[in-house]
């Protein structure tokens, strides 16, 4: 079964592009449709993606790609044993995406991590706060414009 074709036929105005490089089936979509698509992926009996394996973000600042951010979702189906990568485009100006917490509770922590590291907000997220770093930290370290060794210690010398 070709998952990409299925999604393209189902959501023709949502899909921006697709590819299957290295055998990973990938769909790039507009960010507005992520909840709709995720619902479809989860509840469609033929696809049955019951597991959200991974959720992350990539900052394309250095590659001069527009828009700057891409949310990357990896889905896996335990019953059908297939995978899908969905990427949602997020602009720099208003980095906000709808949350997937309602569908997969694990999205809660993954999205908190993305907020912590990239500063992308999640609409309707129940508890959006930093997870790996501390509240005093200013900035989002995995953004490409954050210096590698810019330290913000709570105690100890500043350097």
């Amino acid at each position, binding site marked *: 079964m070709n998952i990409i074709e299925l999604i393209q036929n189902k959501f023709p105005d949502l899909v921006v592009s697709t590819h299957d*490089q*290295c*055998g*990973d089936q*990938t769909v790039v979509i507009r960010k507005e449709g992520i909840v709709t698509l995720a619902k479809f992926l989860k509840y469609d009996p033929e696809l049955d993606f*019951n*597991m*959200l*394996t*991974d959720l*992350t973000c*990539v*900052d394309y600042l*250095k*590659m001069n790609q527009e828009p700057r951010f891409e949310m*990357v979702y*990896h889905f896996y189906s*335990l019953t059908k*044993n297939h*995978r899908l*990568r969905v990427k949602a485009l997020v602009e720099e100006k208003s980095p906000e995406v709808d949350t997937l917490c309602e569908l*997969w*509770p*694990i999205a*809660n*922590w*993954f999205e908190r991590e993305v907020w912590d*590291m990239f500063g992308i907000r999640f609409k309707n997220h*129940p*508890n959006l706060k*930093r*997870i*790996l*770093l*501390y509240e005093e930290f200013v900035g989002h*370290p*995995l953004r490409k414009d*954050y210096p*590698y060794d810019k330290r913000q210690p709570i105690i100890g010398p500043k350097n």
Partner: protein
Amino acid sequence: MENEYTPLTTSDDALDSQSMLINMGPAHPAMHGVIRLILKLDGEQVMDAEVEIGYLHRAFEKSAEQGNYLQVVPYTDRLNYVSPLINNFGYVCAVEKLMGLQVTERADYIRVIMSEISRVCDHLTCIAATTMELGAFTAFLYFMKAREFLYELVEMVTGARLTISYARVGGVKADLPDGFKEKTLSALKETRKTLKELDLLMTRNRIFVDRLAGVGIISKEDAIAYGITGPFLRATGVDYDVRKAEPYHVYDRIDFDIPVGSNGDSYDRYLVRMEEMQQSMRIIEQALAQMKPGPVCVSPSAKEIPGAEMVDEAKMGKTKGLMELGAVVDPTLEGTGKEHQKLIYPSGTPNEKKVMLPAKENTYGNIEGLMNHFKLIMIGHGMAPPKGEAYFPVEGGTGELGFYVVSDGTDRPYRVRVRPPCFPTMAAFHKIIKGGMVADVIATFGTVNMIAGELDR
């Protein structure tokens, strides 16, 4: 689900006089030093809990973007420091997938053997920590004894006990040393003996069973919704194992079973881990039997000349003609003669030349090897996968360990993302311990096998 994420504070009006807030960790012996639990207690019962992580955030993902592709390997050692070899192989497999490289058969077998040794270490440590936190210090010493035999094997192959950096894109660093098979078999024998003793000591031990059985239960549906994998998921009755579902390396040629639990409680997780160790040892024995001599890495084609001879020639200034030659090297880098040493360099495509570092004899012995080495090491000239992205899952000690690598076509990874296997488990942890006793938090936490290095990265 609702009201689940209300932050817990002392000024909370909802906090009636019955309940109290207690802070567990991060400097708590059973929290492995890096987890903070805020528990809302009613007497001994946990009414609510909040998990705070991040105390070991070491910026793996940012560090990985700084150097070239091979320089990420040492960082991956320190992700899951209980089974570093699996991390190594997971990362290089992701890069190989991106480059479209196929490693040699022997390298795949070596990867399987080393991964499984690592997995046994991982499970041993996990159960050892659990038992120690439950007060069974003797059992802890037994487990560590068994682990020490396996560490000796790891040291024999890689040169280091823990932070091994053994994997290379395109193969492994060096071949297995002489006498590895015999030593492994005897180490496995010792491990089995220890495990049998422990089985007698623990599995039907009344105190141990009472502390674990029926504690920390998670349902199958919840586990899947939280994305939990590995022994934790298998204890609930789902037989998902990446090694079976999407066989990588040469797992499809090896016969092994996936132990599955039924209750999803701490005791089932203990049993699943105990059985998995037996299966891992089975895999090691099969792989050792099936393995054939051969090259351990992809590499350029070359004419052959013994390594020591080449170095001697070069030292005397007789470099003429050496440029076209490749050294026949000892794959263990030890310098003794080996039967299979002639096979180390098969012919390869020019593309592969841009991946593997040349053998040390080549680097020191001739200008071509030196240049090849230099070109791979120098920033801006090293191995450069094509522009794109790849996700590669392997079965880590705690579950599905995925590496997502994005390349921009240069010699530095644009982004390396790890899918840490114990992250989902910790995300679900507050749900698992809710309603239980404070003392059960410790027992449950032990069986989660939380490894801070990969949890916080």
